[in-house]
């Protein structure tokens, strides 16, 4: 279905309406610094990628040369039968610029996305129970037990992430938690959740780390449980995080 064109008259009216506001005073210096940082990171990733590629190419070349020269060397070592060309070396791999391993150095472009590019939509418990109740029953049940807001992130029409912002009281202490549930079964990952990789500590089921500041513990956890959860908990109660993780696992 071809999309509806906007009405020009209305577009002009709204344009003029927005245009009458006072000029905002936004500071773009942070954005420009972020842009430079992003370019540096990409250059660094490209250098790493090409370094890995070059190393792989070197290894491949050495392997090819070794394989092609070794039989000839062995033949000479066994004795001269006078038969030329009898022990043909295995056909050398033709030199190729395509390295079948080249994609392991960089994540596939299609598997990493930005939350900023996704559409957010609040989701109700009934809808979530119907659609995701089987896989994320415990997470959704929290909405019946505590105060919870759920948000679905949609990318190109596909639900990719479910976010739950939960607040409750445990042993008299306030607990504020955010749980992100991966809905793509690991096929896609949000760039913004990369900070959940490489956490300090590891249990049998999840990795985590905790910081203490201003009387509260801020804990972050990552486990590939049912679809993959990324969890953040803030509370003055130290056990709040481990209790929540024990519930979700």
């Amino acid at each position, binding site marked *: 279905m071809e999309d509806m064109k*906007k*009405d020009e008259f*209305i577009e002009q009216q709204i344009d003029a309406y927005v245009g009458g506001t006072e000029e905002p005073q936004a500071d773009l210096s942070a954005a420009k610094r972020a842009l430079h940082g992003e370019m540096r990171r990409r250059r660094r990733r490209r250098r790493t990628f090409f370094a890995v590629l070059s190393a792989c190419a070197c290894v491949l070349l050495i392997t090819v040369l070794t394989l092609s020269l070794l039989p000839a060397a062995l033949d000479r070592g066994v004795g001269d039968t006078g038969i030329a060309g009898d022990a043909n070396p295995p056909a050398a791999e033709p030199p190729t610029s395509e390295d079948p391993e080249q994609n392991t150095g960089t994540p596939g472009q299609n598997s990493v996305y930005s939350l900023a590019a996704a559409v957010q939509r609040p989701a109700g418990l009934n809808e979530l129970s119907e659609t995701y109740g089987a896989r994320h029953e415990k997470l959704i049940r929290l909405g019946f037990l505590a105060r919870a807001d759920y948000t679905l992130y949609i990318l190109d029409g596909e639900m990719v992430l479910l976010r739950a912002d939960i607040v409750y009281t445990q042993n008299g202490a306030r607990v504020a938690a955010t749980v992100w549930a991966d809905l793509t079964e690991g096929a896609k990952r949000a760039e913004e959740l990369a900070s959940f990789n490489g956490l300090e500590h590891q249990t049998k089921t999840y990795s985590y780390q905790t910081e203490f500041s201003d009387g509260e513990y801020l804990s972050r956890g990552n486990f590939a449980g049912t679809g993959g959860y990324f969890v953040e908990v803030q509370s003055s109660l130290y056990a709040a995080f481990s209790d929540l993780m024990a519930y979700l696992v």
Partner: protein
Amino acid sequence: MPPLDNEQLNRLIAAVAAGDADALDAVYALLGKRMFALAYGFVHNRQDAEDILSDSFVKLARFAHTFRAGTNGYGFIMRIVRNTALDFLRSRKRTASENIDDFFSLSDERYSPERREEALLLEGAIGRLPALEKRMIYYRYYLDLTVREIAKETGMSKSAVQRLMESAEAHLKTYLTAGQNPTD
């Protein structure tokens, strides 16, 4: 404000993705007020709206490379602003929601005196629309969502969205025209 040129915007986003910091200034010059108006509709506070605007440009700088060339650049940028505003509200432990009336309440004391009368006319016309039609106008003209995207957002069918949009536009034009020609 000059009419939006999606090709120009596509080129600017591509330039940002390529690391051109001046392209950020150009996007700001082209869309800054629209982005600010959207942010302001969420927070009703100039300082907060400007913070959201700044944060949105940081996100644009970091994620411009995820933009697919040839698609709707304006929608891409406004989506960044919308998500940034919702995240801002959540981080301040405020309810992250969209009250459509707030996006059509820009004519405060700082609004251009020359355009105030027209602004009040538009606000009055929007105010007369039923809630769902108001929402359609917001989705289509503020966020530049397609019919398909609006259908996914609202859970309505595409044909229902199309009918509602046509009705909203017809009503709005009637109210605006009547307001501009009060003797009609």
